[in-house]
């Protein structure tokens, strides 16, 4: 399946892009996607601990099972206000 991934804030600079599409085996988890992105973009691996993961508009944890067509977002701690 193809999963679309969006980066926000300085994660765009760390990834060197705003958005990318990642091919994954069916049944892959959000954690597996995160690991794959970190190996493609080492600067993001350094931020692994503080990375927030969302699917659509909901936060999800690494055990979440991805489905075809879902949009994933990776971003650093939020700073509104």
């Amino acid at each position, binding site marked *: 399946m193809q999963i679309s991934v969006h980066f926000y804030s300085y994660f765009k600079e760390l990834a060197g892009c705003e958005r990318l599409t990642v091919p994954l085996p069916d049944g892959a988890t959000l954690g597996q996607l995160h690991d794959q992105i970190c190996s493609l973009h080492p600067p993001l691996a350094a931020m692994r601990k503080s990375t927030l993961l969302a699917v659509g508009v909901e936060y999800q944890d690494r055990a979440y099972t991805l489905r075809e067509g879902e949009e994933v977002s990776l971003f650093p701690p*939020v700073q509104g206000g």
Partner: protein
Amino acid sequence: MHHELTLTAAPIDEAALLARRTLTAGMGAVVYFAGVVRGAEDGHAIRAIEYEAFRPMVEHQFELIFRQLEQRWPVESVRLVHRLGEVRVGEPSLWVEVVAPHRGEAFAACQFLIDEMKRLVPIWKKPLT
């Protein structure tokens, strides 16, 4: 509970927001918070902050926070405005109004709303020098 969320690139017009306040006869407390851009970030002088948002998720996360707030306190109304894009030093980036029967719940709900926003709502800032 009435709630109103505004994400805007335009300056926050506090006077206009104030003029649109409504409250019923059972409401005794209104708490406002204005968060203003300070002239320094991490000890370095700045001229502005640029706010970026993941808008659909901002809206959804605020909805979730409003729902929790409504379950915890008898708040009649919440209005929240957050600026996006460039906000100059001295200008408010955030404005919140909470209307409730008594002051304890108005203060608690207002602080909860801001704390939860800072924990969950996908908005980020970049200092501009």
